């Protein structure tokens, strides 16, 4: 039911109001024809009998009340899908921007996505080896998990995400693997870094990219995750791929959300972000996971740069409440030159417990992990104390803890950008480092593992 109107009545920010309608539906897609012949897109935010509030995706610049035509499509936003999308690059609204041909659709889906029935979910428990000790050993990633990278301006989060995309594998399996990459408001350089790195490693052949650059319309950013995830769902649950979705930068997405909310004159929640931001983010993040009796999976790594490295800022805060853990990139570790600079203490993988241990990684993994955490946490505490009191005022055992913390950062956390450590290497390295501490300090380890691993020094 396509209908066209010339009855635009108000324009404010990215919002327009169309009057004198013959009815429209909530969430339907709208095309706006400008006098100069260009076409823009929008979505109905509020549907009344003879009036519609429309959010414009490409902004309202040059819009004119009298000579703009508005066409109501009668349908919500959709994406054309087929196996040919793999290896292609699209705009934030799903238009090819790689000089390739239009996609001939085998399947057309709305991008909203229905919630997965919790009863239909399968619990993620397959260990993914990323080759990065700070993740594999202590904050283990599993298939179907959503694990964001919390970072800040000037930190190596993109390199880390790319290294994970290159190296991620499931032990003893050779499955179809795909990367869906959604860029929101990133600079050309950043986007280029991703594209060229994916191209270099050949990964582009199994990637789908949705790119909205910093100078592209702000509102288009809101569409990127929906298109990316609808694609991911198609690849994972229809075609059986194991999909890794990387979304960067969620901070830009949330700012776009705030911009639209302000234009709609909604009551703001914390720091001007809309009250429904939690729900909105949840509808993105919760689309990943595993489904019973389906071979594919969606694993998600959103990247977000924390404004002023503040993790209590609403964006990282709400994200942390939805995602299954987080990887913190630390400015102080990076300043020391310790790439990938993962701050393991505040980092967390909530699903690790089901993905590690006997038959998954190795029997000693859970105990070792707890021991490393508690030893490093104590080491860091003592380090702070040493700053005030001087190292000589510390007890002998505490001095050992300082040495442990230092070596842990230098050898365990720090690794090469191309270094792909196996899980056995990571675990053995952990035991090797624990040798610095006496056996009496191994309070988180069961006797049998002390016998089998600690006393052998990780060899």
């Amino acid at each position, binding site marked *: 039911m396509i209908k066209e109107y010339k009855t635009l009545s108000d324009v404010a920010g990215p919002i327009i109001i169309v009057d004198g309608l013959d*009815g429209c*539906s*909530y*969430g339907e897609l709208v095309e706006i024809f400008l006098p100069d012949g260009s076409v823009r897109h929008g979505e109905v*935010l*509020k*549907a*009344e*009998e003879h009036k519609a*509030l429309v959010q414009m995706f490409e902004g309202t610049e040059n819009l004119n009340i009298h000579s703009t035509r508005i066409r109501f499509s009668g349908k*919500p936003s959709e994406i054309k899908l087929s196996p040919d999308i793999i290896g292609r690059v699209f705009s934030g609204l799903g238009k090819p921007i790689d000089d390739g041909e239009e996609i001939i659709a085998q399947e057309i889906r*709305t991008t909203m996505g*229905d*919630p*997965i*029935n*919790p*009863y*239909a*979910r*399968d*619990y993620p428990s397959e260990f993914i080896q990323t080759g990065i000790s700070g993740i594999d050993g202590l904050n283990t990633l599993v298939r179907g998990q959503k694990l964001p990278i919390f970072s800040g301006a000037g930190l190596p989060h993109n390199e880390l995400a790319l290294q994970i995309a290159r190296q991620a594998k499931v032990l003893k399996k050779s499955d179809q693997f795909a990367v869906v990459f959604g860029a929101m408001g990133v600079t050309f350089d950043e986007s280029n870094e991703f594209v060229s790195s994916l191209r270099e490693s050949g990964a582009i052949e199994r990637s789908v990219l949705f790119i909205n650059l910093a100078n592209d319309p702000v509102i288009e950013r809101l569409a990127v995750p929906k298109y990316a995830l609808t694609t991911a769902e198609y690849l994972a*649950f229809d075609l059986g791929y194991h999909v890794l979705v990387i979304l960067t930068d969620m901070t830009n997405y949330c700012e776009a959300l705030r911009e639209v909310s302000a234009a709609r004159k909604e*009551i*703001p*929640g*914390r720091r001007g972000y809309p*009250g*429904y931001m*939690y*729900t909105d983010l*949840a509808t993105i*993040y*919760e*689309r990943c*996971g595993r489904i*019973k009796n*389906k071979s594919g999976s969606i694993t998600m790594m959103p990247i977000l740069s924390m404004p002023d490295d503040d*993790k*209590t*800022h609403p964006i990282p*805060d*709400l994200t*942390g409440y*939805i995602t*299954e*853990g*987080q990887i913190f990139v630390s400015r102080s570790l990076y300043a020391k030159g310790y790439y990938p600079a993962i701050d393991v*203490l*505040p980092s*967390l993988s909530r699903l690790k*417990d089901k993905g590690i241990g006997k038959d998954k990684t190795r029997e000693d993994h*859970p105990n070792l992990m*707890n021991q490393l955490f*508690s030893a490093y946490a104590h080491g860091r505490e003592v380090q702070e104390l040493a700053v005030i*009191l001087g190292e000589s*005022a*510390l*007890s002998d055992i505490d001095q050992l803890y300082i040495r442990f913390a230092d070596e842990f950062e230098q050898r365990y956390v720090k690794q090469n950008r191309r270094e792909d450590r196996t899980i056995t290497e990571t675990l053995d390295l952990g035991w090797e480092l624990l040798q610095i501490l006496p056996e009496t300090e191994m*309070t988180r380890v069961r006797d049998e593992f002390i016998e089998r691993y600690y006393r052998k020094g990780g060899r």
Partner: protein
Amino acid sequence: MSNEKQQGRIVSISGPLIVAEDLPQAHMMEVVRIGNEKLFGEIIELHKNLVYIQCYEETTGLRPGETVTSSGVPLSVTLGPGIIGAIYDGVQRPLDTIYKSHGDYIARGIDVDPLDYSKKWDFHPLVKDGDIVKEGEKIGWVEETPTIKHYIMMPPGRSGTIESIQEGSFTVKEPVATVTEKGISQPVTMLQIWPVRTKRPFAKRIVPTQPLITGQRVIDMFFPVAEGGTACVPGPFGSGKTVIQHQLAKWASADMIVYVGCGERGNEMTDVLMEFPHLKDPKTGRSLMERTILIANTSNMPVAAREASVYSGITIAEYFRDMGYNVAIMADSTSRWAEAMREISGRLEEMPGEEGYPAYLSSRVAGFYERSGKVQTLGGSEGSLSVIGAVSPPGGDLSEPVVQATLRVVKVFWSLEASLAYARHFPAINWLNSYSLYSNLTDAYFKDTIDTLWPTYRIQAMSLLQKENELNEIVRLVGTDALSESEKLVMEISKSIREDFLHQNAFDDIDTFTSGRKQFYMIQNILSLYTESLLRIRAHKTLKVSDIMDLPVRASIARVKYQPEENIEKCNLTTHIKEALDKLTSTLEESND
């Protein structure tokens, strides 16, 4: 309320808020079906000819002009045999049935029965023909699971003389009895329908006396919650709220558990669904799923249904309380519920209170927690309903409105701290700012059932931890060398209380649950090491705390947590401790000689 069904039409749609007109008989809180897809909604405001509706489903595609059909009844839950072990969404639609009929995703406009209306249950009467029964009285039971007898009660508001009642096999909709009241005889079925926003009636409230045993050491020993009590668990993300809620759902000594996943992660609900059937109830040895009901309204499911989910949960819990059971409800997380209220309030363009939350936030929160309590039921038995709510304050800031509104009504506060979580000290309950107003009440119980020393040990251990906190200040300024040997002992013993007693690994087969008796032995070991060492340090000037801490018995104390409950007697190390210390002091004396 009229049961007449009416039809109106949609005027406008904005997200989950729909305005309709031409429904003159509409009542507040009445359930309606919206549009061609028959989406589920509830009336939340009336303005002359206009009706404001919150829709429990995604509204994309709805058009003004489509019809709205009223149902004549408020949002209700359906109660009866078949409810245990179920998994529902926020408005009691069974997710397992939806999965079978509609596939992996939750489509819109699904209308499925909350209970299986075709299943036959073996009904056993408890009363006979001619008996006079009052409202809420048990008239019979069915064995719903081997753990739980599902009692069939007279519905609230109905009483009279039993005209006929028969044993046999019935569906929930078939009458099992006929009851005459004032000359009118009416059938009684096993089904009750109750509006979720109205509390179920009871005879009177009683003061709680029994603790809810959780098997979690920091809770049972230091911050216990009573059967019929209220507790809240606020904490920043990653501090382990959900793990605590899961642990309570697994091990708490309640007869029935209602677990409400309100606006949280889908995988967490899957975790419960996959794990609980394989876990054993420590009391009965049966599968935990046989005493559990799940309400799962995950964060990506419609926000209005999230708002309703905690009410659906607590109404189901009250129903089992009315049968005389001890019921516990876990709501994870009440912040998501509050945010759902805020979102709907914002769409209604109500005047916002603090941080955009509606001004009625605190009265709603208080109203919810007040539905807890130990009661004498209408039928004359005693039942209790404990409420444990998780709160997810933004940035872990406890001064925000939801935490503050909650703290005003709950009696137990388990304060979760990020710094403890970072050090992987779980449960990350801060022992210095948490509190429980039930300790005195429950001390009496533990004195009777475990040991008269229970309260003494609790106070002693807590004062050691307080002392440690003070000493830490000194250490931070001048270092450990400034401490005397007895102060060093306090530091070491407190460390032992923290690491060997308070720290508890939820993912370890043995450590996940600790009985009251074992908890007692564990704290007794640590405290007797303290008392005995202190005596000897005072007597022998040359005795060093570090020598005591190097004793192998110290490591044994730490490992007691991994001692299975079957070997409970091996957990008592007091004689070992004395022997080890005696040996140490005698070698000291020899070397002095």
